[in-house]
């Protein structure tokens, strides 16, 4: 069956200043997406609504001691652009050979009082045991210029593929922001820990270098952390101080090959119970780090200690159930995938006690 050829173009209207934007990754994403879907044609297709969260890699970091001296913050109104990046991935179904996944990324920036966004995707892939290496290698090559660079674990497993492809897209978006924004604050979702899957040290270093060259400061907010101090999660440490403030978690000893490219702080930016782990580029002097936080307080909305720009990035890239249905509709129509309903074995075996496969 002949598949209709999709118009493959990158966005002609990238709203940032455009010095030398490398658009090879989105281009490659589209090509691989279409190529992989062609091979899924006419296959039975099992719907699946299991969401993949961008899982925090287990950080093997030991805390020795820390200065629990809170650093008070005063909002600084000096006009500063705030930009943020986030991506999400989702498995939208299974085929007899693999699975169909979708990834999407969102870049948000706030200039003066308006938020703007640029969304990439959804990119849909049919990933199988046979093609996963090819897909991932091709994407890595498009992004890193050489396959398996700093990749100690080879190609990811099939189940890891959605998050790993999303990570690649996210790194590309971060690179674009670090090259295009000037004198701004760039917010990442997650940490600045490298040397783990999806976070090659060299690449993150480059992103941070690029950002510094353009007088940007990277602030990485982690929604979850496994770092503990005196048995407490670092974000749960009781501090008797009025927010906004942050305190540094000093002398962290990561086990190789893990590298911490940022200094780790706990930031409590608004009243309430929420505090977040915050990684700030190590190479940036402490005064500038604090000033960056103060500029963030003066330029972005903060709700429950979390910056609105980053929240919007997350909201805009997350797939809703409606979009999942639409993508299932798209692949069923375009690639003639026959949708089947495979029985849920948990339900089948355990009846009302089976909570479904996704909850196993």
């Amino acid at each position, binding site marked *: 069956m002949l598949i209709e050829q*999709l*118009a493959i173009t990158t966005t002609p209207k990238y709203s940032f200043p455009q010095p030398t934007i490398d658009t090879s990754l989105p281009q490659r994403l589209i090509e691989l997406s279409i190529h992989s879907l062609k091979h899924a044609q006419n296959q039975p297709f099992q719907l699946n609504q299991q969401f993949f969260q961008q899982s925090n890699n287990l950080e093997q970091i030991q805390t020795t001691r820390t200065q629990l001296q809170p650093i008070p913050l005063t909002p600084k109104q000096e006009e500063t652009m705030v930009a943020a990046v986030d991506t999400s991935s989702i498995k939208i179904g299974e085929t007899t050979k693999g699975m169909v996944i979708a990834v999407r990324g969102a870049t948000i920036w706030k200039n003066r009082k308006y938020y703007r*966004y640029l969304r990439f995707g*959804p990119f849909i892939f049919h990933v199988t045991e046979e093609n996963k290496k090819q897909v991932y290698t091709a994407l890595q090559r498009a992004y890193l210029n050489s396959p398996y660079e700093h990749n100690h674990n080879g190609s990811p497993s099939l189940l890891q593929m959605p998050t790993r492809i999303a990570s690649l897209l996210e790194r590309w978006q971060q690179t674009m922001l670090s090259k295009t924004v000037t004198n701004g604050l760039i917010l990442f979702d997650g940490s600045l820990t490298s040397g783990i899957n999806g976070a090659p040290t060299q690449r993150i270093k480059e992103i941070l270098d690029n950002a510094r060259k353009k007088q940007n400061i990277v602030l990485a907010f982690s929604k979850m952390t496994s770092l503990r101090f005196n048995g407490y999660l670092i974000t749960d440490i009781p501090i008797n101080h009025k927010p906004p403030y942050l305190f540094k978690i000093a002398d962290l000893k990561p086990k190789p090959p893990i590298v911490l490219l940022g200094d780790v702080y706990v930031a409590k930016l608004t009243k309430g119970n929420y505090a977040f782990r915050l990684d700030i580029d190590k190479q940036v002097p402490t005064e500038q780090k604090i000033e960056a936080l103060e500029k963030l307080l003066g330029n972005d909305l903060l709700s429950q200690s979390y910056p609105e720009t980053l929240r*919007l990035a997350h909201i805009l890239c997350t797939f809703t159930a409606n*979009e999942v249905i639409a993508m299932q*509709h*798209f692949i069923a129509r375009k690639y003639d995938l026959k949708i089947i309903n495979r029985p849920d074995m948990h339900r089948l075996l355990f009846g009302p006690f089976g909570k479904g496969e996704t909850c196993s």
Partner: protein
Amino acid sequence: MKLYKKEGNIVQILSFPNETVEKGDYLLIEDGDVGKGLIVQVIDVQFANIPGILEELLRSLPDGGELIQGEDFDPLEIAPHITYIQDARLLRCKIRATMNNESLSPNSSWLPSRSQSAIKKLPIPTLLKMAKTTGELPIVLGGTKDSMLLTIDASSLDGRLNIVTGKKETGKSHLSKLLMLNLIRYGATVVVFDLNGEYTSLGMTSDEKRNAYHNKIHVLTPSQNFKVVLKQLNLHVLLSILIHALHLPGTSAREFRTIWRSLKERDNLTLHELGEAIRNSRCNHHVRDALFSRYYALLNSRFFTDNVAEAMLLNESLLKAKNEGGAIIINLRNTSSIDRQIVVEYVLGKLVELLTSWKLKAVFLFAEEAHLYLRETYWDDIVTRMRHLGIFTTFVTNQPNTIRENIYRQADNIFLFNFTNEHDLEVVSRAARVDAETVISIATDLPPRHCLVLGKVVKDFPMVVKVKALDIKTMGETRLFFKDTN
């Protein structure tokens, strides 16, 4: 379209944005494997309950209620699919019939296949043809939404009780005129209680020329060209007027009967002699006073006369209408409440008399705002005794609660125009020939001059029709203060 759910006699169908289906449309759910089809009518169109839709909408408005500006790089063009899913509709449909080999039955005990059934729109003419609503006496009511003509058969109004209702200025009287003129065309005898003089110019075109019905429209205005000679009155008709319209007590009625018989024996039945007889009666003075007050009410109505030449005989008009088809318009405009009741009592009494003696075969009676002149006991009479005698009534009202519930229950046809008030619709929905859900859902959205036709005329397939225009002189327009000031 896809069959989604069935609960009771409600079927839910999933429809996509490229399929244009509206309230009132008929759909055929065909199950090829069993060779049967289910005919359903759309009674409500809702958005399909798509998972994640709330998140989708919230996401588009995160910036203090303003749309967040941005661009989407969507190379696979998924966005149209998202809007396609978002705009999916859920059609709530009422099962109307089962189609089996081109014949219809009201059976809905089977269920078509959800996966294999094909759903398509059923054009109204096809449905009408299958339902065999048209016969030898077609009446074109108007056009359906898809520009097809909705034709009913005059025989489906024969022997039936009809109600035309809707809020004011929606076109009730217009439809009544259309029905009436078509009945006349087929030779029927029609009597209209015309409360506002709206029907008096039915014989004229809009540019005030005589139309084809001119000679068949007989306008009788009480106390003007419609008077009654006492001599020609039957005692029971006059007693009905006295008892029901003028509330004469029983004792006084007995005395009146004695006086009347005495005058009749002497062939002395005139208004003057009747007055004298009451004056000279040796009855109790309270009875005499009661009789006198009613006598003066009759006299003051100027509806009764002793001059035979002055009396326009209702019989003649009715018999003329019987032979050629025609309408007797009883113009009750400018008639007081009491006089109106006197006239109506007289006309109904006369009709019963003529029908009982088979001088008339049957009469189609159109009663506008009947609660203003019809006495309590007549409501039951109309749906029972009078129908058997051959009076087939059409009630026209903008106050549906003025018609008794038993009338709705026994109504054969209902022509329902727009109502926005739920209380009004609730009253109408008591009719036996329709379900409340259909009435409430469809009637609230009817535009002016559009009518939901229910009942035997459409073989119980409720249909919405835009009532066709008539080239007649309009008399029912509201008088306006500011109309000519510009």
